């Protein structure tokens, strides 16, 4: 029904251009007809999201019903992850509202609350919830796995390894080994972790979601170790299992950018421009391709507007991405370093370390370089790109 978004927009712009009143075009307007399509809702053509919407409607008339709220929160969280759409995080939190505070909370809602806090980068809050939840329910495997994940993000590898070890015998072997592989590979045991992971991957069939997760881990570890052929193989195998996973796509795009294969990023991310993280990778690829100059300029402007919009609402969730944007696309190393430092205070994954180091080197900031160098030495980090960068003389 109606005219499509781009179609009518260009028509409206044509009116503006014809009237030579470009300034007026940025202002609010009255659409020319009732049939003009203004917005395409996310559930259009997505039966799972349409179902989520119906479940939310049912929950709204009975908001304290745990059996309605938990599936809504879980599905909304999943949608936020796959689509990279933070509005679903707000919906998940709304579903959990009756259980959002206090410690007298059913385990299922409590775990979702902790997971949601993690996605909102409230790592301290997430860990506090998980500590209390595991104290009350020590056998809750998913809570332990989630805690290990959060501990990895904040760089507490020894604690993460302990949680993963405690999972042995409670969940599938591939989950235990995947859980172990992250902290082990980031604290000096990359070779052993990778060997164990590939070995289980070779044998185990199992759940395709778990396999995709393990393959992504294997690809990232292989890339960090400098085994690029193996990384490529794992990334492709993972993408074959779930070509829509936004995290996986971002990781593969980063790999392609590092391997200086920007042209391959374009088909991978062309349809993901709504996701800021993926749009940034797309723009980074376009920057290196002269024939993409026009798309690059456009996407760079879009990203600037989005980071600006995030700053206006007081969001600090994408500081890592914004630091990369400032350093690589805006040629603003000082701004990048400020963001990278603020981000490092909260989040300590290899990507956080890398942007800190890159921005510090671009600024010639010895202090930030020392912070990064000390971390690498203390944890015996094995990351080909980071270590090469650290050793490269300026």
């Amino acid at each position, binding site marked *: 029904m*109606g005219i499509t978004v781009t179609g009518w927009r*260009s028509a409206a712009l044509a009116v503006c*251009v014809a009237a030579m009143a470009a300034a007026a075009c940025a202002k609010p*307007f009255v659409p020319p007809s*009732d049939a003009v399509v203004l*917005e395409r809702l996310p559930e259009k053509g997505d039966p799972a999201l349409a179902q989520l919407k119906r479940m939310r409607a049912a929950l709204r008339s009975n908001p304290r019903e745990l059996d309605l709220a938990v599936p809504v929160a879980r599905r909304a969280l999943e949608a936020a992850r796959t689509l990279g759409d933070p509005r679903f995080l*707000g*919906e998940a939190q709304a579903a959990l509202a009756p259980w959002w505070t206090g410690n007298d909370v059913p385990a299922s809602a409590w775990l979702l609350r902790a997971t949601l806090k993690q996605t909102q980068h409230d790592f301290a809050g997430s860990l506090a919830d998980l500590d209390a939840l595991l104290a009350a329910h020590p056998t809750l495997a998913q809570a332990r796995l989630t805690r290990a994940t959060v501990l990895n993000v904040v760089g507490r590898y020894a604690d993460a390894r302990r949680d993963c070890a405690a999972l042995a015998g409670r969940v599938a072997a591939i989950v235990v080994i995947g859980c172990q592989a992250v902290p082990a590979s980031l604290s000096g045991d990359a070779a052993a972790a990778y060997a164990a992971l590939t070995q289980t991957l070779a044998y185990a069939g199992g759940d395709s979601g778990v396999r995709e997760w393990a393959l992504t881990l294997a690809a990232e570890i292989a890339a960090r170790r400098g085994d690029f052929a193996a990384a490529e193989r794992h990334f492709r195998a993972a993408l074959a299992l779930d070509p829509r996973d936004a995290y996986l796509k971002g990781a593969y795009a980063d790999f392609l950018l590092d391997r200086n294969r920007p042209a391959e990023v374009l088909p991978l991310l062309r349809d993901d421009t709504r996701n800021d993280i993926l749009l940034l990778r797309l723009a980074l690829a376009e920057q290196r391709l002269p024939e993409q100059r026009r798309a690059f300029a456009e996407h760079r402007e879009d990203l600037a507007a989005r980071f600006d*919009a995030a700053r206006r*609402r007081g969001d600090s969730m994408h500081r890592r991405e914004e630091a990369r944007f400032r350093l690589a696309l805006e040629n603003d190393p000082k701004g990048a370093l400020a963001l990278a430092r603020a981000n490092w205070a909260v989040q300590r994954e290899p990507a956080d370390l890398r942007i800190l180091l890159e921005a510090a080197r671009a600024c010639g900031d010895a202090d930030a370089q020392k912070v990064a160098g000390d971390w690498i030495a203390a944890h015996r980090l094995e990351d080909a790109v980071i270590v090469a960068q650290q050793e490269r003389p300026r």
Partner: protein
Amino acid sequence: MIRLLALLASAFLLAPAYAHKASDAYLTIERDGRTLHGQWDIALRDLDNALGLDVDGDGDIVWGEVRAREADIAAYALPRLQVSSGGERCTLAPTRWLVDRHTDGAYAVMQFDGACAQAGPTLALDYRLFEGLDPQHRGLLNFVENGQSRSVVFSADAPHRIVGGDSGGAFAQFATYLNEGVWHIWTGFDHILFLLSLLLPAVLVRDTRGWRSAQSFRSAFVDVAKVVTAFTLAHSITLTLAALSIVVLPSRLVEAGIALSVVLAALNNLFPVVADGRWLAAFGFGLLHGFGFAGALHDLGLPAGSLALSLAGFNLGVEAGQLAIVMLFLPLAFVLRSTWAYRRMVFAGGSTAIAMVAAVWFVERAFDVGVFSALAAR
């Protein structure tokens, strides 16, 4: 023609890639005295979530679907934005509906006008759009006054904000709050009646045979000075503590307590319990009155940028207004102190009337009932 086509083609390419973004609404409020002009951009996707705009369920929201629900959108959104000036709600009414595009898609644009009964120095805003539906929603306000603009972010954790009052320089601001302070004591009858109840006996002296006239103006003056100083000191302390949110009391308790203090002060004139120590009562109850002043100041709002200055201005205004009352009262009462009219009508009759009025206030405030309004409605 070819050039136009080329422009069209470029326009097509320049259509932005929409972002996935958390929910924000963009609010602009421009204030000119008691008049407000505003614009509120609310994402269609969020409105659909709250109100179900996509009536035909095809997953597309068309302009016709928005237009058909303008009244519903206004009825949903406007009660979730409370704008108050001088403690009274301003009325908001939509004037025009448009559409705009932000980084994440299309927004309904509601332009509105507002009217406030009083032009206070600040505007108090309470923003609760999509409360319960999306705790991550933010309201991004751009407040414009005197050509200056200021940004404020509303969230589920911070739905209440005060804007304005920080333009026009330090002196103008101090003067504004001084004026508000004076005005508040002059129109705050409970404070005046409390003060008068304590001052009425100042021109008299009580001995074993009852009340007699004070010998000298000096002794009456000293008595008044003691009472006024104690009252001032006490309410300044609690006004400051409450305005800075160091001590917070429920307003119903404070208001009822103030009414009770007036009753007791007036009854003390008729059935004396405390004679020489009235300054002590002034101090003790003054603490309560300070919380009452703070409530009034809260309604006006304190600009975050110059809290101390505005607080000092308001407090000095209260003192100045109070002093003016005393200066009017004391000479008059001193001259009339020996007359039958003063003894019987002003002192005894006045105290009785004050006690009765204040007793009604007490009932109204403590039990949240409208005695006066119920009588007036008959």
